[in-house]
């Protein structure tokens, strides 16, 4: 017991330990490496592709040319990244100065000048490479997938789509590879713009436009935090270069005592930015709505890459977070609560893409939990595995939607595994679901467990509580994931097409199968199967979609390989990458937990906390899958009965209602923020219209008008009248001059 007590008191100050540790792990200072200037191609290629897509749109290219351009340039960018990874020595981060970008100086009192310098430079370490490998790799695969998926929009829409995707890849590249926070900010806003453009891709659908605006505005709130964080870093450290910041941190003698108020605020500001971009409480509501965009976009931007930008920001500036005692605890609490809340919402949604959206929010929460409890490796590994399996899940959803005329309602599809052409989708979908559910020995299992295990291993009571919540979330995750799979791919074969084939008749589409754009709305589609499907057949995807699904599926499976390497006693590749970057931790967290005999999961009888977590987590995962199998495969009416039973009891009725209505967060935001803002807007509009416009501007204009009216009778049109007025005026002036002359001045 004494040991336990001392452990928990020590662990209470975990962030402080990390802070001291950050000094133990000095990040090697970057080496300027002009020989790696070709790494700039990773940014240049998507930029060129974006420009070419713009030209295609301008010249009205009707072929699939923009798709081909984008796919080829992204594959080339991936190849560049890969060769950069192979050639880059791991000893120290490299800084590649491409060109001078922002450089100005101003006088700060007396003769001293302050210089603000933000060169267009790349900061390349293993974290950058890890991120860029999956960003460009998945980016190229999804671009190939989209060449088939978006084919119904060939023409201007096609060029617009691929142009935006290219802009996204450029921005994401500058976010991840940029050598300073200004470049990161450029990329941060750039991905926000691309996200906005792509969510609002179907701009004649009001819901898509609203979703695009929502995403943009929610992100603005987060971006304010990021901007303030960047300003504060400049004020406190006098530089925005990563290398410079890390050097300045290394020279700070005692991080705890010397920290000024503004330095202490830095991690919280950055955190707000990260929560906005990565859809965490309180800024998570935009991500589920972002599913209005075409599905490849959901897979690439809103599941695999852009939403991990927040994680990247925190991982990159981890030494700053480690300085502030409570910052990481806040990150952990927010992440874990988001994971739990989003999982409960995901359980009750009927739109499969929406379920996947909430699962993304939930998994991102896990990653923040990982960063918060001090396993940057677990967090980054989860980013990595999640990128693959979640992209896979989204692409499967997209392929189903593409083949089923926009149907996304899991109540209206069943047994797709037996439908001709849907085999690849169903089985790759299953693998994605297994990863997401954390089924033993899948990639998602290893990455998720390393996060939860660290929460228990830390011994900090707060983190242990979060660990329990994370375990509960893992159970819910397994349940809702397999709820989707058992409903859509399992059971008897039965399906209804979505509303696309009906809704688009007036657009003159001559082939009546799905066009991939649009959503299956819950309130449409009833009865369509009865009269609608004259000659309608679900059409399975062709080579591009199936091929990409298989490749990404392979990626999702292979993402577990680093964990197997670790089990065999070799170095986990991802862990090595993280330990060589700015997100490195003072000591490897493996073994850190192993020496504690007493931990929260001791009841399992397993001493090693990691093994214990694996056992418990796989148990709850399989339990979740079994429960999903009972309610959604074996006895589907039981699920409805359970819902009805909950609804009929006045004590429990709130539960299904709250979950189905997303805990009414949108409604609360509406009342708390939107409604007052709208009232204020109307007040200002009234003031503007009646006080500023009505009184000041128009009233001011009335003064010369009324004065003019006063003299109007003089202008009667008679020439003599004008002449007399003139003569009279001159006479008056003459009289006045004469008077002055007489009386002297």
């Amino acid at each position, binding site marked *: 017991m004494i040991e336990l007590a001392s452990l928990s008191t020590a662990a209470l100050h975990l962030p402080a330990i990390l802070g001291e540790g950050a000094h133990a792990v000095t990040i090697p200072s970057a080496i300027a490496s002009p020989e790696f200037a070709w790494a700039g191609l990773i940014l240049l290629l998507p930029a060129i592709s974006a420009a070419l897509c713009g030209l295609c749109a301008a010249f009205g290219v009707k072929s699939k040319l923009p798709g081909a351009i984008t796919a080829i340039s992204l594959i080339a960018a991936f190849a560049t990244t890969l060769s950069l990874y192979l050639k880059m020595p791991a000893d120290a981060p490299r800084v590649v100065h491409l060109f001078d970008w922002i450089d100005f100086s101003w006088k700060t009192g007396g003769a001293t000048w302050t210089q603000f310098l933000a060169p267009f430079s790349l900061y390349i370490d293993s974290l950058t490479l890890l991120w860029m490998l999956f960003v460009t790799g998945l980016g190229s695969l999804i671009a190939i997938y989209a060449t088939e998926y978006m084919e119904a929009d060939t023409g201007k829409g096609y060029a617009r789509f691929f142009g935006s995707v290219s802009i996204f890849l450029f921005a994401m590249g500058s976010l991840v590879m940029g050598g300073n926070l200004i470049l990161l900010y450029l990329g941060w806003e750039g991905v926000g713009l691309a996200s906005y453009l792509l969510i609002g891709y179907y701009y004649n659908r009001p819901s898509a436009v609203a979703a695009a605006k929502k995403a943009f505005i929610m992100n603005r709130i987060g971006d304010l935090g990021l901007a303030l964080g960047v300003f504060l870093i400049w004020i406190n450290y006098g530089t925005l270069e990563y290398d410079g910041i890390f050097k300045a941190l290394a020279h700070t003698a005692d991080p705890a005592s010397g920290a000024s108020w503004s330095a202490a605020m830095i991690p919280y500001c950055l955190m707000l930015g990260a929560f906005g971009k990565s859809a965490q409480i309180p800024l998570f509501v935009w991500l589920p709505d972002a599913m209005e965009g075409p599905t490849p976009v959901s897979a690439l931007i809103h599941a695999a890459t852009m939403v991990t930008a927040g994680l990247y920001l925190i991982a990159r500036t981890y030494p700053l977070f480690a300085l502030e005692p409570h910052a990481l605890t806040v990150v952990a609490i927010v992440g874990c609560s988001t994971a739990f809340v989003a999982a409960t919402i995901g359980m009750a949604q009927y739109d499969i893409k929406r379920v996947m959206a909430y699962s993304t929010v939930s998994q991102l929460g896990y990653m923040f939990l990982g960063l918060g409890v001090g396993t940057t490796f677990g967090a980054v590994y989860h980013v990595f595995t999640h990128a693959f399996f979640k992209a896979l899940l989204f692409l499967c959803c997209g392929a189903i939607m593409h083949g089923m005329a926009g149907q996304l309602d899991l109540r209206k599809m069943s047994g797709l595994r037996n439908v001709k052409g849907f085999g690849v989708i169903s089985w790759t979908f299953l693998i994605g679901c297994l990863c997401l559910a954390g089924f033993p020995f899948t990639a998602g299992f290893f990455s998720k467990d390393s996060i939860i295990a660290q929460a228990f291993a830390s011994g900090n009571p707060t983190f242990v509580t979060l660990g329990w919540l994370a375990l509960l979330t893992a159970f819910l995750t397994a349940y809702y994931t397999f709820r989707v799979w058992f409903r859509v791919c399992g059971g008897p074969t039965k399906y209804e097409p979505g509303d696309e084939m009906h809704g688009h008749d007036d657009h003159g589409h001559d082939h009546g199968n799905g066009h991939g754009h649009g959503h299956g709305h819950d309130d449409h589609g009833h009865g369509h199967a009865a009269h609608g499907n004259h000659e309608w057949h679900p059409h399975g995807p062709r080579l591009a979609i199936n091929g990409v699904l298989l490749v990404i599926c392979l990626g999702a499976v292979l993402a577990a390989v680093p964990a197997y390497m670790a089990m065999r006693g070799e170095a986990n590749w991802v862990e090595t990458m993280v330990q060589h970057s700015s997100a490195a931790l003072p000591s490897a967290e493996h073994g850190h937990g192993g020496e504690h005999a007493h931990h929260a999961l001791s009841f399992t009888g397993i001493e090693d906390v990691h093994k214990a977590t694996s056992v418990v987590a796989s148990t709850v995962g399989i339990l979740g899958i079994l429960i999903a199998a009972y309610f959604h495969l074996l006895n589907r009416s039981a699920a409805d009965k359970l819902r009805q039973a909950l609804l009929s009891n006045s004590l429990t009725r709130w539960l299904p209602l709250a979950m189905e209505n997303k805990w009414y967060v949108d409604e609360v935001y509406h009342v708390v923020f939107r409604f007052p803002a709208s009232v204020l807007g109307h007040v200002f509009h009234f003031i503007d219209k009646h006080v500023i416009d009505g009184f000041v501007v128009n009233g001011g204009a009335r003064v010369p008008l009324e004065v003019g009216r006063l003299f109007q009778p003089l202008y009667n049109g*008679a*020439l003599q009248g004008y*002449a007399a007025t003139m003569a009279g005026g001159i006479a008056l002036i003459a009289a006045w001059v004469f008077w002055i002359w007489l009386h002297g001045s």
Partner: protein
Amino acid sequence: MSNMMAQTINTLAVTDAQTVNAALLVSAILFACGLIGFLSRRNMIIMFLCTELMFQAAALAMIAFGNIHHDISGQVFVIFILTVAAAEAALALGLVVLLYRRRETLDSEAWSELRETA
């Protein structure tokens, strides 16, 4: 040389104050006649003649003031005024002819469209 010329001009100039005053008086009377005529008559030709009257009154005043200041430029100016007046007379009479053709009358009342209609 220039000194001699200035002396010559001085002797030629009318230096008598009374004469100058008389010239200014004539100028004022001429101007008043022109103004009254312009204001009271509606025949465009007469009105034009009255403006010419005022014009010449101004020219006369200029010569008178030139004498007061012993400055020849007053007279030089008048030469120019006469030239401009000749050109302007041709222009104005042409305009009067055009206006007459439009309305078949010389009455200036016929041209009051710029009147404010409030």
